[in-house]
């Protein structure tokens, strides 16, 4: 996995600040228009500024990463409240984390973990930044290759499907116990009437890999995971609901 940006010199900006471009003076059809809006809003919610530009390259094995997640004792989505390079260990950073969405194990913060530097596959120690934390052994640093960190969507990236990793884990953990948490993430991640089924395939695939014991039912118009039913018409997500009968 190589996270370097393309090196094309023409038009290759390096501002590290994301902006939302908007074409003016063109006649836009409503569908195209709404897609721009949905993508813009999603980007504004989930992309920290400059995140892509500053993440150092890191080579990870996808199978090892998912295996580590399956065996982890503690998994949560949280934010960094304090970060400090450990004295005498300039390559290790101690993080104090606030738990926002517990997924497995630890229910609330603060949690203390250590990580390596970003160019050594450590989690980016940016104050206030929300990321996934996967703790297999409390004495070991958390790393991006262990599943921790922010997994951004990068077109053409071989591990691009991991940008839905947090949501997949949330879905697995809360599908039965707290649908409201899943609904909240669903609303932020996939938009009814605009999300194509092909854009959700990697999400369903990821759930299948992380929860291999549960069968995901695929039909022409529906995808059913546990009691969540995703309904498609013409391969567009038009609804999702909790099937009370199951």
């Amino acid at each position, binding site marked *: 996995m190589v996270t370097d940006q393309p*090196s*094309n*010199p*023409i*038009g290759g*900006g*390096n*501002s590290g*600040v*994301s*902006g*939302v*471009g*908007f*074409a003016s003076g063109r006649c836009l059809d*409503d569908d195209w*228009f*709404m897609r*721009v*809006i949905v993508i*813009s*809003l999603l*980007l*504004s919610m989930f992309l920290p*500024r400059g995140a892509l530009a*500053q993440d*150092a*390259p890191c080579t990870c094995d996808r199978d090892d990463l998912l295996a580590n997640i399956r065996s982890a004792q503690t998994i949560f989505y949280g934010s960094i*409240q*304090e*970060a*400090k*390079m450990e004295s005498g260990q*300039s390559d290790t*950073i101690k993080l104090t984390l606030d738990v926002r969405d517990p997924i497995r194990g630890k229910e609330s913060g603060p949690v203390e973990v250590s990580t390596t*530097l*970003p*160019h050594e596959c*450590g989690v*980016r*120690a*940016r*104050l*206030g*930044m929300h990321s996934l934390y996967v703790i297999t052994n409390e004495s070991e640093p958390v790393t991006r290759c262990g599943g921790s960190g922010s997994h951004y969507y990068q077109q053409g990236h071989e591990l691009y499907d991991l940008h839905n990793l947090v949501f997949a884990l949330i879905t697995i953990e809360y599908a039965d116990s707290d649908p409201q948490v899943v609904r909240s993430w669903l609303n932020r991640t996939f938009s009814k009437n605009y999300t194509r089924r092909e854009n959700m395939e990697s999400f369903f695939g990821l759930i299948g890999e992380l929860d291999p014991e549960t069968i995901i039912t695929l039909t022409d118009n529906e995808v059913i995971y546990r009691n969540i039913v995703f309904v498609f018409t013409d391969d567009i997500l038009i609804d999702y609901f909790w099937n009370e009968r199951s």
Partner: protein
Amino acid sequence: MRFLSLILVLLASDALACSCAGSDLQGQYEGSDNVFTAVVTGARFDDDGNIEADFMITEVFKGDIPFDKLRTTRSGTTCDTSITVGPEYIFFMGDEGRFGMCSGNKTIVPGRPTPWLDLLKAYKAGETPDLSSPWDFRHHDGSCSLRTDFRSTEDWIMSHLTLEYRYAAPDNPVWTIEQMNKAGYARAVFILPTRKEPADATLNLKTRDREFGATWSDDALPGRSRGAFQLSGDDVRAFAQELLHTKVVQVAGSLERYPSLDGTVIRTTNAGSAIADFVECASQ
């Protein structure tokens, strides 16, 4: 519905875009009391939600660094920022030690080029008379390019001047405009952050002995929302030849969106061998 949607998009845009005045290294250096490199060794939120960071200086280029903590002030605007512990940065600071999104600080990523740091070191050592932007020469997939950045004060995105010459068809064509993938294709593009100049706008690039008229092109960057003033064909090679013995390129033109570009100078002081390398490549 469309009007409501437009408002939503504008709100989303505003949430992302902090408007900072663009600056090159020379401008950053001149506008800062303190310029130094340091590793950020720790950071925390205070009770007001501001960030306080510890740092370890690695090299000083300007100033006495009269502060022992770096601080942000939470303004509630889109210019609020954070800081990452671990990396080394180039800091451009006032004497208060405060920083924000518009401070222009740069992360130094191990293994990646550090043109600004290289130039600061060369300037400190007296190896260059100014901090004008460096020029970068590259070969890639059947073409070579020469690029330098410059400041347009009307926008926070750095603009750049890039000369490109294609001496062989690429193994993997990337341009949707077929002509750009053909051997012999040459262009010089003076790229601006947006497409807001009218179609008949022109920009003159004056070298020591000649003046080149670049014409506006909306599709110089297919698929991107940026436009460019463009030279093409033999003008590109002639322009590159001129750069060999020109110290200052004078930019002239009446632009609606970027009036400050009229009178901008682009210096070749820190080109090193890049211009000669490009001229040699373009002679193939």
